[in-house]
């Protein structure tokens, strides 16, 4: 098993006033080195919580880890405190959804990058303490250049509010790459951007990741974006893994009823998009068994009683369903 990120049977809940919110229910997920995995799901599916669990930013007092583990390069990210701390920001970095909120508005970009490099970038042996400001600045400029920002030196002197959304996101990507990580977690990085800017950023992210052999865990609710840059796609629903498949297979041959209905609800010219009746259940009152069963047209008794296990086929296509679609002929979307 050579996965870089290995999540198995992860169950996690938050303590709230009204009881325990079971946000993640036995999640299985793995990311191989150099792979770009898309984590797709709608609001309330738990993808952001999962990202935060890996990054260790879950609210400590309220989080209850019921089972399972998250292993990044062998290190337990949920419980292995000191070791996990060492990996965060170095081996695994983060590109957030709203870059503006992630920058400190009072400091220049250059200062913030410098701080990052002081603590997180690998030492290159130059200057005192194995690090010199000049070398750092040169690396920063080189990286800003790699993310296609014009006039990188000028950017270092600017404040976050002086940059546009697309520019800020590029800086975020640069900052995520500077520590030379092995994995980047990108949480809906292009949701807030215009379509043309999104195309640029997605292309950039993919190109850089492939060039440098960096794995990416890319969460999104935009299936088009997932098609563009992911190698494999994981679908989550209400805290459970529903389906995992390589990109082309996923879109050509979805087998989980939720995935099918999801693809069918994409707007398409000349066809009335079909929504999924009902709503996503609250993690406080999650249905038993397969959490999708109340809305599933193929549900039967067993779906309510027992949770289907995630079974992986020989073709790498994994599915957690008692009644999956099998016939390839009924492909929903090509």
């Amino acid at each position, binding site marked *: 098993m050579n996965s870089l990120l290995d999540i198995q049977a992860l169950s996690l809940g938050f303590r709230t006033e009204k009881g325990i919110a079971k946000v993640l229910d036995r999640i299985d997920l793995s990311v191989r080195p150099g792979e770009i995995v898309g984590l797709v799901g709608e609001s309330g599916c738990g993808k952001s919580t999962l990202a935060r669990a890996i990054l260790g930013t879950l609210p400590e007092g309220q989080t209850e880890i019921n089972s399972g583990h998250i292993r990044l390069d062998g290190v337990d990210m949920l419980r292995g405190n000191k070791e996990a701390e060492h990996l965060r920001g170095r081996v695994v970095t983060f590109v957030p959804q709203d870059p503006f909120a992630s920058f400190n508005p009072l400091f220049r970009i250059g200062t913030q990058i410098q701080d990052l490099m002081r603590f997180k970038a690998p030492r290159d042996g130059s200057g005192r303490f194995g690090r010199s400001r000049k070398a750092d600045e040169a690396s920063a400029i080189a990286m800003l250049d790699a993310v296609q920002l014009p006039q990188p030196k000028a950017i270092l002197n600017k404040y976050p509010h002086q940059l546009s959304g697309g520019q800020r996101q590029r800086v975020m990507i640069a900052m995520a790459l500077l520590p030379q990580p092995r994995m980047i977690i990108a949480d809906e990085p292009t949701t807030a951007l215009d379509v043309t800017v999104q195309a640029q950023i997605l292309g950039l992210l993919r190109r850089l990741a492939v060039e440098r052999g960096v794995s990416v865990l890319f969460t999104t609710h935009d299936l088009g974006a997932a098609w563009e840059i992911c190698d494999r796609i994981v679908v989550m629903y209400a805290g459970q893994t529903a389906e995992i498949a390589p990109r082309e297979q996923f879109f050509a041959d979805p087998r989980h009823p939720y995935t099918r209905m*999801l693809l069918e609800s994409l707007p398409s010219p000349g066809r009335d998009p079909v929504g999924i009746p009902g709503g996503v259940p609250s993690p406080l009152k999650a249905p038993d068994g397969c959490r999708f069963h109340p809305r599933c047209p193929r549900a039967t008794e067993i779906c309510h009683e027992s949770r289907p296990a995630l079974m992986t086929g020989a073709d790498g296509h994994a599915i957690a369903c008692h009644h999956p679609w099998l016939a390839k002929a009924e492909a929903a979307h090509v």
Partner: protein
Amino acid sequence: MSEGSNPAILEVDNLARHFPVRGFLNRQVGSLRALDNVSFAVEPGEILGIVGESGCGKSTLGKTLMGIHEPSEGEVRMMGERIASPGQKRAARIRARLQYVYQDPGASLDPRWTLRRSLHEPLIIHTDWPREKREEKVREIVKAVGLPVEHLDLYPHEISGGQQRRVGLARILVLGPELVIFDEPTSGLDVSVQATVLRLFRDLKSEFDLTYLFISHDLAVVQSICDRVIVMYLGRIVEIGRTAEVFASPRHPYTQALLSAAPRIGGPRVTENFSLQGEPPDPSNVPSGCRFRTRCPHALPDCAEVDPKLEYEDSHGVACLHWRELKA
């Protein structure tokens, strides 16, 4: 412009909306030209989409048509009657005929009012109907949007987001408008919810005989629901025509870039070869001549001098000096 027999329900004529940019001591140092020379007509019963990226002016257009902003130049006519022009106040009865739906219609509900109260309000303001008549109308509309009548006694926070949206729409419909302007109605919605919402819009349109102006940045949604589409860039219309045609053979370089940026599931990766660089310039500092020329891969010297007007051919309008040469 408007086709032959059907008189346009709305005519927009050279509409401009500028915002003053204030500098030191509150003096006006420049002008943010959010809209310039916008002219088009809306046919009764159609769904006209308005697409564009941030800063293109589509939201400002919606708000100016609605009467939230006053035009700096030009005028808007509804069924021949002038309803907006510089200095003109929006008449109350026009407000009833031309309604505006925010991105989240549920947010238009006062959190301290019961749903019933919120739904009666438009009628209280615009009519002198007695309570029973208002209640009857409210019940009728509530049923039409698919909500149980019992919900009328509840408060917004006691119903789901989707239901709040329906109530927000009901509030619009209670006055019996003819034209409804939607501003980013599906933005931020999950895809499965979006599908349900679009279907709701379609149903309401046919039940109440409405015309829609549909402002969105989501090309896929616009392509699936709109009959005609307007593409805007930096305050101007760059292309206008039947949706199918504009999407199949876009004439303006910006439209071409926009369409090529949208991922196509099942097709080749668009991001690998995407060529449009940079971002739209600041609307307070628009380039001379054609506003798109700074990013246009086909820009020629005369593009900097002449600001192209909309040129129509087969009801498909485009504002580009050289679009004919660019036709592949």
